[in-house]
Protein backbone atom coordinates (compact mmCIF):
# COMPACT_ATOMS: atom_id res chain seq x y z
CA UNK A 1 0.00 0.00 0.00
CA UNK A 2 1.18 3.48 -0.85
CA UNK A 3 2.77 5.34 2.02
CA UNK A 4 0.97 8.49 1.11
CA UNK A 5 -1.30 9.95 -1.51
CA UNK A 6 -2.36 13.38 -2.65
CA UNK A 7 -5.99 14.46 -3.01
CA UNK A 8 -6.53 17.67 -4.97
CA UNK A 9 -9.43 19.99 -5.82
CA UNK A 10 -8.66 19.86 -9.54
CA UNK A 11 -5.79 19.03 -11.85
CA UNK A 12 -6.76 21.72 -14.38
CA UNK A 13 -7.69 25.23 -13.33
CA UNK A 14 -7.68 28.81 -14.46
CA UNK A 15 -4.31 30.51 -14.36
CA UNK A 16 -4.10 32.45 -11.07
CA UNK A 17 -6.85 30.52 -9.34
CA UNK A 18 -6.23 28.97 -5.89
CA UNK A 19 -5.63 25.22 -5.50
CA UNK A 20 -6.13 23.15 -2.37
CA UNK A 21 -4.52 19.76 -1.87
CA UNK A 22 -4.02 17.32 0.97
CA UNK A 23 -1.45 14.63 1.46
CA UNK A 24 -2.33 11.75 3.73
CA UNK A 25 0.38 9.55 5.22
CA UNK A 26 -1.16 6.21 6.03
CA UNK A 27 -0.91 4.63 9.48
CA UNK A 28 1.27 1.84 8.12
CA UNK A 29 3.81 4.40 7.17
CA UNK A 30 3.38 6.57 10.25
CA UNK A 31 4.89 3.93 12.51
CA UNK A 32 8.21 4.78 10.97
CA UNK A 33 8.04 8.10 12.78
CA UNK A 34 5.39 8.94 15.39
CA UNK A 35 5.37 12.58 14.34
CA UNK A 36 6.18 12.39 10.58
CA UNK A 37 6.78 15.80 9.05
CA UNK A 38 4.96 16.19 5.71
CA UNK A 39 6.53 18.65 3.30
CA UNK A 40 5.40 20.05 -0.04
CA UNK A 41 7.17 21.09 -3.18
CA UNK A 42 5.71 22.99 -6.17
CA UNK A 43 7.92 22.06 -9.03
CA UNK A 44 11.41 22.44 -7.56
CA UNK A 45 10.42 24.94 -4.90
CA UNK A 46 10.11 23.70 -1.31
CA UNK A 47 6.99 25.25 0.22
CA UNK A 48 8.23 26.10 3.70
CA UNK A 49 5.64 26.00 6.58
CA UNK A 50 2.75 26.02 4.19
CA UNK A 51 0.93 22.80 5.05
CA UNK A 52 -1.51 22.50 7.98
CA UNK A 53 -0.84 19.04 9.42
CA UNK A 54 -3.29 17.04 11.53
CA UNK A 55 -3.34 13.58 13.08
CA UNK A 56 -6.31 11.35 12.50
CA UNK A 57 -7.88 8.84 14.90
CA UNK A 58 -6.87 6.01 12.57
CA UNK A 59 -3.24 6.94 13.13
CA UNK A 60 -2.78 8.58 9.73
CA UNK A 61 -1.37 12.06 9.29
CA UNK A 62 -2.82 14.58 6.84
CA UNK A 63 -1.30 17.81 5.59
CA UNK A 64 -3.49 20.31 3.75
CA UNK A 65 -2.11 23.14 1.67
CA UNK A 66 -3.71 26.00 -0.25
CA UNK A 67 -1.82 27.80 -2.98
CA UNK A 68 -3.56 31.18 -3.44
CA UNK A 69 -2.57 31.70 -7.06
CA UNK A 70 -1.28 29.02 -9.39
CA UNK A 71 0.78 30.99 -11.90
CA UNK A 72 2.46 28.15 -13.71
CA UNK A 73 0.71 26.66 -16.73
CA UNK A 74 2.12 23.20 -16.09
CA UNK A 75 3.79 21.98 -12.94
CA UNK A 76 3.85 19.25 -10.32
CA UNK A 77 2.81 19.35 -6.68
CA UNK A 78 4.87 16.89 -4.66
CA UNK A 79 4.32 15.47 -1.17
CA UNK A 80 7.37 14.42 0.86
CA UNK A 81 8.02 12.77 4.15
CA UNK A 82 10.98 14.05 6.13
CA UNK A 83 12.42 10.69 7.16
CA UNK A 84 15.76 10.38 8.94
CA UNK A 85 16.72 13.76 7.60
CA UNK A 86 16.04 12.78 4.03
CA UNK A 87 13.09 13.80 1.93
CA UNK A 88 11.10 10.80 0.79
CA UNK A 89 8.69 11.41 -2.13
CA UNK A 90 5.28 9.92 -1.36
CA UNK A 91 3.14 11.16 -4.25
CA UNK A 92 2.89 13.88 -6.89
CA UNK A 93 0.02 15.53 -8.72
CA UNK A 94 0.34 17.04 -12.22
CA UNK A 95 -1.25 20.48 -12.51
CA UNK A 96 -2.28 22.49 -15.55
CA UNK A 97 -3.43 26.05 -15.51
CA UNK A 98 -4.74 28.11 -18.35
CA UNK A 99 -7.90 29.72 -19.70
CA UNK A 100 -11.16 28.54 -21.20
CA UNK A 101 -11.13 28.99 -25.00
CA UNK A 102 -12.01 32.41 -26.36
CA UNK A 103 -14.62 32.62 -29.10
CA UNK A 104 -13.01 31.66 -32.41
CA UNK A 105 -13.34 34.60 -34.82
CA UNK A 106 -12.97 35.64 -38.45
CA UNK A 107 -14.37 32.35 -39.75
CA UNK A 108 -14.24 32.35 -43.54
CA UNK A 109 -14.54 29.66 -46.19
CA UNK A 110 -13.53 29.20 -49.80
CA UNK A 111 -14.65 26.48 -52.19
CA UNK A 112 -11.64 24.94 -53.93
CA UNK A 113 -12.67 23.67 -57.35
CA UNK A 114 -9.48 21.68 -57.79
CA UNK A 115 -9.84 19.58 -54.66
CA UNK A 116 -13.63 20.02 -54.78
CA UNK A 117 -13.64 20.76 -51.06
CA UNK A 118 -14.73 23.61 -48.85
CA UNK A 119 -11.79 25.02 -46.93
CA UNK A 120 -12.59 27.11 -43.85
CA UNK A 121 -10.19 29.02 -41.64
CA UNK A 122 -10.54 31.00 -38.46
CA UNK A 123 -8.68 32.88 -35.75
CA UNK A 124 -8.31 30.57 -32.70
CA UNK A 125 -7.98 33.41 -30.21
CA UNK A 126 -5.35 33.83 -27.46
CA UNK A 127 -3.33 30.84 -26.23
CA UNK A 128 -5.21 28.98 -23.50
CA UNK A 129 -2.08 27.15 -22.34
CA UNK A 130 -4.22 24.02 -22.23
CA UNK A 131 -4.87 21.27 -24.77
CA UNK A 132 -7.72 22.83 -26.77
CA UNK A 133 -9.69 21.03 -29.50
CA UNK A 134 -11.17 22.95 -32.42
CA UNK A 135 -13.93 21.40 -34.51
CA UNK A 136 -15.55 22.77 -37.64
CA UNK A 137 -19.23 21.95 -37.34
CA UNK A 138 -21.91 22.37 -39.96
CA UNK A 139 -25.30 21.27 -41.17
CA UNK A 140 -27.23 21.48 -44.40
CA UNK A 141 -29.92 24.08 -44.53
CA UNK A 142 -31.82 26.09 -47.09
CA UNK A 143 -33.14 29.54 -47.74
CA UNK A 144 -31.87 31.90 -45.08
CA UNK A 145 -30.48 29.13 -42.88
CA UNK A 146 -33.29 29.20 -40.34
CA UNK A 147 -33.96 25.47 -40.73
CA UNK A 148 -31.59 22.60 -39.87
CA UNK A 149 -31.56 19.75 -42.34
CA UNK A 150 -29.03 16.92 -42.48
CA UNK A 151 -26.05 17.27 -40.15
CA UNK A 152 -22.60 17.21 -41.77
CA UNK A 153 -19.74 15.19 -40.37
CA UNK A 154 -17.51 17.22 -38.00
CA UNK A 155 -14.30 18.42 -39.60
CA UNK A 156 -11.37 18.02 -37.23
CA UNK A 157 -8.32 20.07 -38.24
CA UNK A 158 -4.80 18.70 -38.08
CA UNK A 159 -3.08 19.43 -34.78
CA UNK A 160 -2.28 23.09 -34.38
CA UNK A 161 -4.10 24.07 -37.57
CA UNK A 162 -6.83 26.71 -37.71
CA UNK A 163 -8.36 25.48 -40.92
CA UNK A 164 -10.27 22.46 -42.04
CA UNK A 165 -11.38 21.03 -45.35
CA UNK A 166 -14.86 19.55 -45.81
CA UNK A 167 -14.75 17.01 -48.65
CA UNK A 168 -17.15 17.14 -51.60
CA UNK A 169 -19.11 14.06 -50.55
CA UNK A 170 -20.27 15.84 -47.38
CA UNK A 171 -21.35 18.97 -49.24
CA UNK A 172 -24.65 19.84 -50.87
CA UNK A 173 -23.72 22.32 -53.57
CA UNK A 174 -26.04 25.14 -54.58
CA UNK A 175 -27.84 25.05 -51.21
CA UNK A 176 -27.08 27.04 -48.08
CA UNK A 177 -25.34 25.41 -45.15
CA UNK A 178 -24.56 26.64 -41.64
CA UNK A 179 -20.96 26.51 -40.45
CA UNK A 180 -19.29 27.40 -37.17
CA UNK A 181 -16.23 26.54 -35.09
CA UNK A 182 -16.31 24.97 -31.64
CA UNK A 183 -13.33 25.36 -29.31
CA UNK A 184 -13.17 23.12 -26.26
CA UNK A 185 -10.75 22.45 -23.41
CA UNK A 186 -10.99 21.26 -19.80
CA UNK A 187 -12.17 24.69 -18.66
CA UNK A 188 -14.96 25.24 -21.14
CA UNK A 189 -16.34 25.44 -24.63
CA UNK A 190 -16.95 28.38 -26.94
CA UNK A 191 -18.57 28.71 -30.34
CA UNK A 192 -17.81 31.10 -33.18
CA UNK A 193 -20.57 33.06 -34.88
CA UNK A 194 -22.30 30.97 -37.54
CA UNK A 195 -21.86 31.45 -41.29
CA UNK A 196 -24.72 30.80 -43.71
CA UNK A 197 -23.36 30.11 -47.19
CA UNK A 198 -23.71 28.09 -50.38
CA UNK A 199 -20.30 26.54 -51.10
CA UNK A 200 -20.64 27.54 -54.75
CA UNK A 201 -21.03 31.19 -53.76
CA UNK A 202 -17.56 31.19 -52.17
CA UNK A 203 -15.69 29.67 -55.05
CA UNK A 204 -12.21 31.05 -55.36
CA UNK A 205 -11.30 31.26 -59.02
CA UNK A 206 -7.80 31.00 -60.35
CA UNK A 207 -6.89 33.71 -62.89
CA UNK A 208 -7.52 33.13 -66.58
CA UNK A 209 -4.70 32.49 -69.04
CA UNK A 210 -3.90 35.50 -71.20
CA UNK A 211 -2.45 34.98 -74.67
CA UNK A 212 -1.47 37.16 -77.61
CA UNK A 213 -3.78 37.10 -80.61
CA UNK A 214 -2.50 37.70 -84.13
CA UNK A 215 -4.02 40.85 -85.64
CA UNK A 216 -6.96 40.37 -87.97
CA UNK A 217 -5.43 38.95 -91.21
CA UNK A 218 -7.92 40.98 -93.29
CA UNK A 219 -6.41 44.16 -91.87
CA UNK A 220 -3.88 45.55 -94.36
CA UNK A 221 -1.70 47.07 -91.72
CA UNK A 222 -2.21 46.42 -87.99
CA UNK A 223 -3.07 49.67 -86.20
CA UNK A 224 -0.01 50.91 -84.34
CA UNK A 225 -1.97 51.83 -81.20
CA UNK A 226 -3.68 48.49 -80.71
CA UNK A 227 -2.97 45.14 -79.14
CA UNK A 228 -4.94 41.93 -79.66
CA UNK A 229 -5.33 39.34 -76.99
CA UNK A 230 -7.40 36.35 -76.05
CA UNK A 231 -7.89 34.44 -72.84
CA UNK A 232 -9.10 31.14 -71.51
CA UNK A 233 -10.95 30.90 -68.21
CA UNK A 234 -9.44 28.69 -65.57
CA UNK A 235 -10.39 25.18 -66.74
CA UNK A 236 -12.13 23.89 -63.58
CA UNK A 237 -14.44 26.92 -63.74
CA UNK A 238 -15.24 26.70 -67.43
CA UNK A 239 -18.89 25.86 -66.78
CA UNK A 240 -19.40 29.06 -64.79
CA UNK A 241 -20.65 32.33 -66.26
CA UNK A 242 -18.01 34.88 -65.30
CA UNK A 243 -17.03 38.46 -65.93
CA UNK A 244 -13.42 39.51 -66.21
CA UNK A 245 -11.39 42.71 -65.82
CA UNK A 246 -8.39 43.62 -67.91
CA UNK A 247 -5.73 46.06 -66.76
CA UNK A 248 -2.67 47.28 -68.61
CA UNK A 249 0.24 49.66 -68.25
CA UNK A 250 3.22 50.61 -70.36
CA UNK A 251 6.59 49.29 -69.21
CA UNK A 252 7.65 52.77 -68.20
CA UNK A 253 8.80 54.01 -64.82
CA UNK A 254 5.97 55.23 -62.59
CA UNK A 255 3.36 53.98 -65.04
CA UNK A 256 0.07 53.09 -63.34
CA UNK A 257 -2.52 50.56 -64.31
CA UNK A 258 -5.44 51.45 -66.52
CA UNK A 259 -8.46 49.19 -66.45
CA UNK A 260 -10.95 48.09 -69.08
CA UNK A 261 -14.62 47.78 -68.21
CA UNK A 262 -15.67 44.27 -67.17
CA UNK A 263 -15.76 41.77 -70.03
CA UNK A 264 -18.26 38.90 -69.99
CA UNK A 265 -16.49 35.55 -70.05
CA UNK A 266 -18.40 34.53 -73.15
CA UNK A 267 -16.14 36.87 -75.15
CA UNK A 268 -12.62 35.49 -74.96
CA UNK A 269 -10.82 37.89 -77.25
CA UNK A 270 -10.27 41.63 -77.14
CA UNK A 271 -8.80 44.46 -79.18
CA UNK A 272 -7.16 47.05 -76.96
CA UNK A 273 -6.59 50.38 -78.69
CA UNK A 274 -5.62 53.92 -77.82
CA UNK A 275 -2.14 52.85 -76.80
CA UNK A 276 1.27 54.37 -77.45
CA UNK A 277 2.94 53.04 -80.57
CA UNK A 278 6.15 51.01 -80.28
CA UNK A 279 5.70 50.47 -76.59
CA UNK A 280 5.74 47.32 -74.50
CA UNK A 281 2.72 46.89 -72.32
CA UNK A 282 2.05 44.56 -69.38
CA UNK A 283 -1.46 43.17 -69.36
CA UNK A 284 -3.24 41.30 -66.55
CA UNK A 285 -6.70 39.87 -66.16
CA UNK A 286 -8.84 38.60 -63.33
CA UNK A 287 -12.30 37.00 -63.32
CA UNK A 288 -15.20 36.44 -60.98
CA UNK A 289 -18.25 34.20 -61.10
CA UNK A 290 -21.06 36.38 -62.37
CA UNK A 291 -23.98 37.09 -62.17
CA UNK A 292 -24.05 34.46 -59.45
CA UNK A 293 -21.97 35.36 -56.37
CA UNK A 294 -18.24 34.54 -56.11
CA UNK A 295 -14.80 35.89 -55.29
CA UNK A 296 -12.42 37.65 -57.66
CA UNK A 297 -9.46 35.61 -58.75
CA UNK A 298 -6.06 37.14 -58.27
CA UNK A 299 -4.65 39.00 -61.25
CA UNK A 300 -3.10 36.77 -63.86
CA UNK A 301 0.65 36.86 -64.43
CA UNK A 302 1.55 39.72 -66.77
CA UNK A 303 1.44 39.19 -70.51
CA UNK A 304 3.87 41.51 -72.23
CA UNK A 305 2.98 42.72 -75.72
CA UNK A 306 4.43 45.45 -77.83
CA UNK A 307 2.52 47.85 -80.08
CA UNK A 308 3.96 48.29 -83.56
Amino acid at each position, binding site marked *: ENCGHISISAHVMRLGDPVTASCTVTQSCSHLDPEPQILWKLGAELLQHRGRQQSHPDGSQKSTITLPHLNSTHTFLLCYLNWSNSLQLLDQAELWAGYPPAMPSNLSCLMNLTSNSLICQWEPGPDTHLPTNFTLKSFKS*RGDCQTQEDPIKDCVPAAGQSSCSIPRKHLLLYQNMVIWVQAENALGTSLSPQLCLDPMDVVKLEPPTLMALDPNPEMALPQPDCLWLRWEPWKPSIYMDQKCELRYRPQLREASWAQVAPLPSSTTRYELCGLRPATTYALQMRCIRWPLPGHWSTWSPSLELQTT
Partner: protein
Amino acid sequence: PLPLPRSFVLKCLEQARRVQAEAVEMQQKLCATYRLCHPEELTLLGHSLSIPWVPLKGCSSQDLQPTRCLRQLQAGLVLYRGLLRALVGISPELSPTVDTLQLDVADFATTIWQQMEDLGTAPAVQPTPGTMLTFTSAFQRQAVGAMVASQLQCFLELAYRALRYLRGP
Protein backbone atom coordinates in the same frame (compact mmCIF):
# COMPACT_ATOMS: atom_id res chain seq x y z
CA PRO B 1 -46.24 31.64 -65.57
CA LEU B 2 -44.21 30.00 -62.78
CA PRO B 3 -42.52 32.73 -60.67
CA LEU B 4 -39.02 31.25 -60.84
CA PRO B 5 -36.35 33.28 -59.01
CA ARG B 6 -33.63 34.34 -61.45
CA SER B 7 -30.90 33.06 -59.13
CA PHE B 8 -32.54 29.62 -59.17
CA VAL B 9 -32.53 29.49 -62.97
CA LEU B 10 -28.94 30.77 -63.12
CA LYS B 11 -27.87 28.09 -60.64
CA CYS B 12 -29.66 25.42 -62.65
CA LEU B 13 -27.94 26.60 -65.83
CA GLU B 14 -24.58 26.43 -64.10
CA GLN B 15 -25.31 23.00 -62.63
CA ALA B 16 -26.45 21.74 -66.02
CA ARG B 17 -23.17 22.93 -67.60
CA ARG B 18 -21.19 21.42 -64.74
CA VAL B 19 -22.86 18.01 -65.01
CA GLN B 20 -22.66 18.15 -68.80
CA ALA B 21 -18.90 18.69 -68.63
CA GLU B 22 -18.53 15.73 -66.29
CA ALA B 23 -20.70 13.49 -68.50
CA VAL B 24 -18.49 14.40 -71.47
CA GLU B 25 -15.40 13.57 -69.40
CA MET B 26 -16.92 10.22 -68.39
CA GLN B 27 -17.73 9.43 -72.01
CA GLN B 28 -14.20 10.31 -73.11
CA LYS B 29 -12.69 8.10 -70.42
CA LEU B 30 -14.95 5.15 -71.38
CA CYS B 31 -13.89 5.62 -74.99
CA ALA B 32 -10.20 5.84 -74.09
CA THR B 33 -10.25 2.99 -71.58
CA TYR B 34 -12.66 0.48 -73.12
CA ARG B 35 -12.98 1.61 -76.74
CA LEU B 36 -16.69 2.24 -76.11
CA CYS B 37 -16.85 5.28 -78.34
CA HIS B 38 -20.17 4.71 -80.16
CA PRO B 39 -23.07 4.62 -77.72
CA GLU B 40 -25.47 4.36 -80.66
CA GLU B 41 -24.19 0.79 -81.09
CA LEU B 42 -25.45 -0.07 -77.61
CA THR B 43 -29.14 0.65 -78.11
CA LEU B 44 -30.08 -3.02 -78.37
CA LEU B 45 -28.11 -3.83 -75.25
CA GLY B 46 -29.88 -0.99 -73.53
CA HIS B 47 -33.26 -2.43 -74.39
CA SER B 48 -32.23 -5.86 -73.17
CA LEU B 49 -31.13 -4.40 -69.84
CA SER B 50 -34.25 -2.16 -69.81
CA ILE B 51 -32.29 0.98 -69.22
CA PRO B 52 -34.93 3.60 -68.56
CA TRP B 53 -35.00 6.53 -70.95
CA VAL B 54 -36.22 9.80 -69.48
CA PRO B 55 -38.58 11.84 -71.67
CA LEU B 56 -38.69 15.60 -71.06
CA LYS B 57 -41.92 16.30 -72.91
CA GLY B 58 -42.74 19.23 -70.64
CA CYS B 59 -39.45 20.90 -71.59
CA SER B 60 -39.83 20.88 -75.37
CA SER B 61 -39.37 24.26 -76.96
CA GLN B 62 -42.66 23.95 -78.82
CA ASP B 63 -44.72 23.39 -75.70
CA LEU B 64 -42.72 24.37 -72.60
CA GLN B 65 -44.69 23.78 -69.42
CA PRO B 66 -42.46 25.01 -66.58
CA THR B 67 -44.03 23.07 -63.70
CA ARG B 68 -44.13 19.84 -65.69
CA CYS B 69 -40.66 20.46 -67.08
CA LEU B 70 -39.14 20.94 -63.62
CA ARG B 71 -40.85 17.81 -62.32
CA GLN B 72 -39.60 15.72 -65.24
CA LEU B 73 -36.14 17.24 -64.98
CA GLN B 74 -35.96 16.45 -61.27
CA ALA B 75 -37.31 12.93 -61.72
CA GLY B 76 -34.86 12.35 -64.54
CA LEU B 77 -31.93 13.50 -62.45
CA VAL B 78 -32.99 11.15 -59.64
CA LEU B 79 -33.15 8.31 -62.16
CA TYR B 80 -29.70 9.12 -63.53
CA ARG B 81 -28.37 9.25 -60.02
CA GLY B 82 -29.64 5.70 -59.55
CA LEU B 83 -28.04 4.58 -62.81
CA LEU B 84 -24.75 6.18 -61.81
CA ARG B 85 -24.90 4.56 -58.42
CA ALA B 86 -24.97 1.19 -60.16
CA LEU B 87 -21.70 2.15 -61.89
CA VAL B 88 -19.81 2.88 -58.67
CA GLY B 89 -16.56 0.94 -58.64
CA ILE B 90 -16.66 0.50 -62.41
CA SER B 91 -12.89 0.97 -62.56
CA PRO B 92 -10.14 2.90 -60.81
CA GLU B 93 -9.76 5.24 -63.77
CA LEU B 94 -13.45 6.09 -63.90
CA SER B 95 -14.50 5.96 -60.26
CA PRO B 96 -13.53 9.55 -59.36
CA THR B 97 -15.50 10.87 -62.35
CA VAL B 98 -18.53 8.67 -61.64
CA ASP B 99 -18.47 9.58 -57.94
CA THR B 100 -18.33 13.32 -58.63
CA LEU B 101 -20.95 13.04 -61.35
CA GLN B 102 -23.26 11.16 -59.04
CA LEU B 103 -22.91 13.81 -56.32
CA ASP B 104 -23.45 16.68 -58.77
CA VAL B 105 -26.50 15.04 -60.34
CA ALA B 106 -27.93 14.50 -56.84
CA ASP B 107 -27.28 18.13 -55.86
CA PHE B 108 -28.88 19.34 -59.10
CA ALA B 109 -31.96 17.24 -58.31
CA THR B 110 -32.06 18.72 -54.79
CA THR B 111 -31.84 22.27 -56.12
CA ILE B 112 -34.92 21.69 -58.27
CA TRP B 113 -36.82 19.75 -55.61
CA GLN B 114 -36.34 22.44 -52.98
CA GLN B 115 -37.44 25.14 -55.41
CA MET B 116 -40.57 23.16 -56.27
CA GLU B 117 -41.25 22.78 -52.55
CA ASP B 118 -40.82 26.53 -52.07
CA LEU B 119 -43.27 27.15 -54.95
CA GLY B 120 -45.68 24.51 -53.71
CA THR B 121 -45.45 22.60 -56.99
CA ALA B 122 -43.55 19.57 -55.72
CA PRO B 123 -45.28 16.24 -56.27
CA ALA B 124 -46.63 14.57 -53.14
CA VAL B 125 -44.04 11.82 -53.29
CA GLN B 126 -40.34 12.24 -54.06
CA PRO B 127 -39.36 10.25 -57.15
CA THR B 128 -37.05 7.32 -56.44
CA PRO B 129 -34.12 6.03 -58.48
CA GLY B 130 -35.91 2.74 -59.10
CA THR B 131 -34.41 -0.68 -58.70
CA MET B 132 -30.66 -0.90 -58.83
CA LEU B 133 -29.35 -2.29 -62.07
CA THR B 134 -27.31 -5.47 -61.88
CA PHE B 135 -24.80 -6.65 -64.43
CA THR B 136 -23.61 -10.06 -65.42
CA SER B 137 -20.28 -8.86 -66.76
CA ALA B 138 -17.80 -6.03 -66.53
CA PHE B 139 -18.57 -5.30 -70.17
CA GLN B 140 -22.24 -4.74 -69.38
CA ARG B 141 -21.37 -2.28 -66.63
CA GLN B 142 -18.96 -0.42 -68.91
CA ALA B 143 -21.47 -0.40 -71.77
CA VAL B 144 -24.22 0.95 -69.53
CA GLY B 145 -21.76 3.59 -68.41
CA ALA B 146 -21.28 4.64 -72.01
CA MET B 147 -25.04 4.75 -72.57
CA VAL B 148 -25.71 6.72 -69.41
CA ALA B 149 -22.99 9.25 -70.23
CA SER B 150 -24.40 9.72 -73.70
CA GLN B 151 -28.09 9.86 -72.74
CA LEU B 152 -27.36 12.19 -69.84
CA GLN B 153 -25.82 14.67 -72.26
CA CYS B 154 -28.88 14.63 -74.51
CA PHE B 155 -31.10 14.96 -71.46
CA LEU B 156 -29.10 17.96 -70.22
CA GLU B 157 -29.03 19.66 -73.60
CA LEU B 158 -32.81 19.58 -73.72
CA ALA B 159 -33.02 20.74 -70.12
CA TYR B 160 -30.50 23.51 -70.78
CA ARG B 161 -32.52 24.89 -73.65
CA ALA B 162 -35.63 24.94 -71.52
CA LEU B 163 -33.80 26.59 -68.62
CA ARG B 164 -32.36 29.24 -70.92
CA TYR B 165 -35.87 29.95 -72.16
CA LEU B 166 -37.06 30.18 -68.55
CA ARG B 167 -34.19 32.56 -67.74
CA GLY B 168 -35.37 34.99 -70.35
CA PRO B 169 -33.20 37.75 -71.83
